[in-house]
């Protein structure tokens, strides 16, 4: 295996691992948040506007951690800096 193949293998495997592991925490967190919001909606239907608003904002903030791992994995696949560096090295030789 030359260095290009190594970089490709490492990038692809790491991208998969990044999104797979990075999504576990936010999904558990979102589940907890929705469950708690549903409980409080059932207890206080009058406050539904505030609860829904806060729930949406909170969900998007929890989700953003998953989005960060998604961005990292997309960078690893489509805009890999090491890949460009290796190509430049090979072309320079």
């Amino acid at each position, binding site marked *: 295996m030359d260095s290009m193949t190594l970089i490709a293998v490492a990038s692809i495997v790491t991208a998969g691992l990044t999104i797979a592991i990075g999504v576990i925490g936010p999904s558990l967190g979102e589940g907890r948040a929705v469950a708690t919001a549903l409980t409080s909606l059932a207890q206080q239907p009058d406050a539904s506007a505030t609860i829904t608003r*806060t729930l*949406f*904002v909170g969900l*998007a*903030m929890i989700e*953003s951690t998953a*989005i*960060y791992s*998604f*961005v990292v994995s*997309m*960078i690893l696949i*489509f*805009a890999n800096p090491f890949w460009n560096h290796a190509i430049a090295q090979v072309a320079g030789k």
Partner: protein
Amino acid sequence: MRLSPDEIIFWQYGFFKLNATIVFTWGLMLVLVVGSLLVTRRLSKGLERSRWQNLLEVIVTTIETQIEEVGLREPRKYLAFLGTLFLFVALSALCTVLPGFEPPTGSLSTTVALALCVLVAVPLFGIEGQGLGGYLKSYVQPTLIMLPFNIISEVSRTLALAVRLFGNMMSGAMIIGILLSITPFIFPIVMTVLGLLTGMVQAYIFFVLAAVYIAAATQIHQPKSEPSNPPGKPGKETPWTA
């Protein structure tokens, strides 16, 4: 496959590039500015009003109430800045239904620029609200030890604002692109509808977070003993913090 609309270049002359991000940003600015100019040219004060004036009034009053609910006392002062942020992000998310349109917020340059605007605006509003000394004192608020952490949080929340908006808008376009190659029928439409919802929620979040940061900066720290609320407006004093 490309990550951002920065890579579509329409015109290039030496150092100057005209890429899709800039073109669509200008297009959105044109739509917003010319649209509201046309509507506000003939405003009526009476009960007879055009439907476009009605639309604008609904938007403005909704944004105003939302700003007030976050905890800012005079929403009119912050309406221009926060409303512009919201309208730009929301319109760029809504226009993704148009074929050929690439949302400019799907480029990291645009979102970083928007987040930098928030980074600059928060100290300005804070100094205006409680004076230079009062604002600087808020950095050492619990103790002096918290000074570096407060500064770090200022920077990291700007980064989080930018990357959150970029990631959401970029992932919407990316997922639709990937799905088009797997299931070309119907399912991408469902994802487009979901992308519209996410885009609106992200616009709202960007706006609310900017409002919360400004509210935290302009809030004057008072001793707990004296009642800080005017009577009749209870519970609006402390904004929920993110």
